[in-house]
């Protein structure tokens, strides 16, 4: 199955780094969004997106709010969501899990970690 990623981060640098890492892992299809609201619009417009990688801290709509919105929508509730964020304290991680992210990566990450988590999410 082809994977089309939606990469959501307000940092242009981070989006590029994630894109480059995905390319090095052999994933070439992706779309980008700079906040949760734009991400939701892209999800509505493109039903071929089947994996979401999102940051937490973003203007307009955070990654956590985006996750809740995706899970609340019948069409997108089962989408794999990988949270990639600097937030590494217990309460944040628990909060993200309660919002039902599929997995969680702490920045700065390595390509190996990103690959491992993508593989793990897809295998589940």
């Amino acid at each position, binding site marked *: 199955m082809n994977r089309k990623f939606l990469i959501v*981060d*307000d*940092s*242009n*640098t*981070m989006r*590029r*780094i994630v894109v*480059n*890492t995905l390319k*090095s892992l052999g994933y070439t299809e992706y779309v980008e969004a700079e906040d949760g609201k734009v991400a939701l619009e892209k999800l509505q417009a493109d039903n071929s997106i089947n994996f979401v990688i999102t940051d*937490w*801290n*973003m*203007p307009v709509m*955070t990654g956590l709010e985006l996750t809740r919105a995706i899970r609340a929508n019948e069409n997108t509730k089962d989408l794999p969501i990988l949270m990639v*964020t*600097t*937030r*590494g*304290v*217990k309460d944040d*991680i*628990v909060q993200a*899990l309660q919002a039902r992210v599929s*997995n*969680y*990566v*702490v*920045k*700065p*990450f*390595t*390509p190996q*970690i990103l690959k491992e988590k993508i593989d793990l999410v897809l295998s589940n």
Partner: protein
Amino acid sequence: MSDTVKNLNEMMGKLKDVEEVFKFGKKMLPVVENFISFISDFIPIIEEVNGSIEETRSKIPEASKQINNVTNATELAITEVLDVVDQIHEQVNNIDECLTDMVSARHSTEELINNLNNEIQDNTKAKELLDKISSKIDVGLDLEMMKNKLKDIISKTDQITMSLQVQDITAQQLAAVNHLIISVQHKLSNLLAVFNLSDKDTFATENLELPGTHFDPNASYNKSSSGQDIVDSIISNEKASQDDIDKLFS
């Protein structure tokens, strides 16, 4: 006792009270004088403090602007670095493809030389020439080693790319500082207004709009895997109790 005498006694009593008040007032006079003197000395100090607060407050927009400039300039520079890294990737991939073609061509040439060698078994002179050609082709070109070197270059550029995540992390730290100093500006403005030392509407520089808190104030560039290990432990204990999760952090 007649009413007149009674009234006179009351009046005398009140006059004594008045006398006591005057005596107290006489004693208090130096204290009041000292207090007035103190206030007179204090007013310039308050005015100086007021000036300092206003000066500090007015410098905050410039400081905030400088912080934003640093963030923007860093992001621009990082974008340029990423562009160069992408170009290096592309060029290395091109060289790698060329090397692959060369390896393939070399294998074909070796096969041809072997075939030719079999055909000229009895021709000593031709065999000598063929050996010379064969040795020229080998000229120490270890193509596989070169391909491995290219893999090293790609690996190192990947490391550079990953290290550039520091930009996102420092941008969040700077955003937190920016938020803090703008909050300080608002507090100073309120302080000046409360003491009526300055009218909020007459500030030379207006308060900056408090930016949103879309940053992680605790963001840090930590390359150790401890942060991810904690996350992984929590995820693997997802169905465990809160106490079990707490133990991971103790």
